[in-house]
């Protein structure tokens, strides 16, 4: 008997829900409000990413439909290309500099200015300023700074009575110069994340440590930094994902040169994929970038989730 009544109850509650939903325009609301986001996101985010994987199996200049199926040849060419090795290595260097130089610098400065005083607010604004400037503008300003004829470095060499160095045209110095600009541009962003976290550390914990006789450095090391671990983890994530995508700054500064020594993954895929209309080949580089980004993100999440639990 009970098996007979059960579906009936179920059905009634469903029609009830339906009637109720219709009366308040629940379905109309879903049908009107949701599709724009779904369509835009699918069309311009998900589909292109899927397309990249598809195109990467063809030799294709972007016109007509891709027909010349080459299998994994694009990937093989990519892995054989010494410029791509340089691009990968440069990207790795950017990640390392972000984690090892930029983040500690940002943390140190955050500890110096996190308290809410007028002068601190001023310093914070100044440090954060480069972050909101367009990368291309920053790159152009710094290519003036490093210019061998007119720039500030040229002037410094001159004053010291040395021969001027064309920093951005020098294989040895061009990439370190770019890394300097990237630290300059982004440290303020990480600092802001730490400041937000430091301001939420309970004051009595810091007071208690001070009463116990802890020096400021000890308070920072043993109280504040452990308590903002989450913020550090988050900023590390942004540093890595951001480093993987560096493009805008390189174009005005070196455009990948001299002799292709300052490419990153993205300038590589732009230069060798789009500028030369090797859509299939460039897509293979895009797939590598995508896999690296997702892979590192997942690995990082796992590694830090364990770390944060302890």
């Amino acid at each position, binding site marked *: 008997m009970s098996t007979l009544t059960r579906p009936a109850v179920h059905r009634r509650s469903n029609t009830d829900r339906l009637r109720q939903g219709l009366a*308040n325009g629940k379905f*109309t*609301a*879903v049908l*009107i409000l*949701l599709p*724009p*986001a*779904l369509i*835009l*996101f699918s*069309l*311009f*985010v*998900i*589909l*292109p990413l899927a*397309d*990249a994987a598809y195109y990467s199996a063809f030799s294709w200049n972007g016109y007509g439909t891709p027909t010349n199926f080459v299998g994994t040849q694009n990937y093989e060419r990519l892995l054989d290309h010494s410029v791509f090795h340089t691009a990968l290595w440069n990207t790795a260097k950017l990640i390392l500099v972000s984690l090892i130089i930029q983040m500690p610098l940002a943390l140190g400065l955050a500890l*110096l200015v996190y308290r809410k005083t007028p002068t601190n607010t001023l*310093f914070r*604004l*100044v*440090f954060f*300023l480069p972050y*909101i*400037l*367009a990368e*291309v*503008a920053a790159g*152009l*300003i*710094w290519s*003036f700074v490093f210019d061998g004829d*007119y*720039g*500030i470095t*040229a*002037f410094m060499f001159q004053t010291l009575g040395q021969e001027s160095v064309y920093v951005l045209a020098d294989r040895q110095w061009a990439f370190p110069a770019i890394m300097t600009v990237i630290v*300059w541009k982004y440290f303020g962003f990480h600092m*802001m*994340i730490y400041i937000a*976290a430091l301001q939420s550390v309970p004051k009595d914990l810091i007071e208690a440590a001070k009463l116990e006789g802890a020096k400021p450095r000890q308070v920072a090391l043993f109280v504040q930094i452990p308590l903002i671990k*989450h*913020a550090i983890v988050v900023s590390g994530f*942004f540093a890595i994902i951001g480093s993987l995508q560096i*493009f*805008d700054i390189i*174009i005005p500064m070196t455009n990948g040169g001299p002799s292709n020594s300052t490419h990153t993954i*993205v300038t590589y*895929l*732009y230069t060798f*994929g*789009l500028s030369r209309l090797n*859509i299939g080949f460039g897509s293979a580089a*895009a797939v590598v*970038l*995508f896999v690296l*980004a*997702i892979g590192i993100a997942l690995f990082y999440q796992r590694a830090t989730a364990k770390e944060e639990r302890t």
Partner: protein
Amino acid sequence: MSSATFRNTLRVIVLILVASLVIGPLLASFFGGFKTNAELRTNPLWLPDAWNPQNYVAIFLDGNFWRYMGNSFFISSMTVLLTLVVGAAAAYVFSQIRFFGSRMIHSYLLLGLMFPFAAAILPLFIKVRDLGLLDTYWAVILPQTAFGLSLAILLFKAFFDQLPKELFEAAYVDGCSYLRFFWSFTLPLSTPILATVGVFVFVQSWNNFLLPLVVLNDRSIYTWPLGMMQFQGEYLTQWNMILAFVTLTITPAVIFFLAAQKYIVAGLTGGSVKG
């Protein structure tokens, strides 16, 4: 006591040193815009001999500068408008209406938080071209909106979830529909988060370089970063002109930042802490 003052002096010295390294290049380019190229060679960093504004005036009188700025302004404004409307609408559904599959669709739309934009740039170029949108404003607006949606939806939903439920129940009893509730209650109550996301999206769009570079070829539709690179290509080593141009393009950004910094910082740290 004296060790504390010593420490504080050291702290201020470090801060001033870092601040001058940060500001130095920006001031140098502002000053540089007033100099002649010959003066730049001997004095690239400090105040100009004479405050001669002719480089700035020349750029102001050049119609291209205003066209680039206008294009960027239109594209950024439309991106903001579209992201706010489309993102808030979707977030409202996820916050207020449960239906079969809604959680899955929600997770799907948040996937964009993990994806590197640059990985999609070549197929985006093909897609935009096949849709016949190359060299139109929409070629930049639509993909930018799509890539900004994930963060917008994340932030909007978190905000909508905190709005008082009693409000909706009261309106519901009075026969208010979901659509009307969204329009007359949710949106007006959400101005803080709309402002935060709006300012953040505006800055991102204003500074965007890669996407316009790929989908815009016609100079008349260039955004200012493209125009600036074009200008640099024309003036090559006339650094005084280039510095004047750069200074003029970053000045509105700096003013905007000073006016809206509260929202910019909130968008950043809010997005990072919740993401």
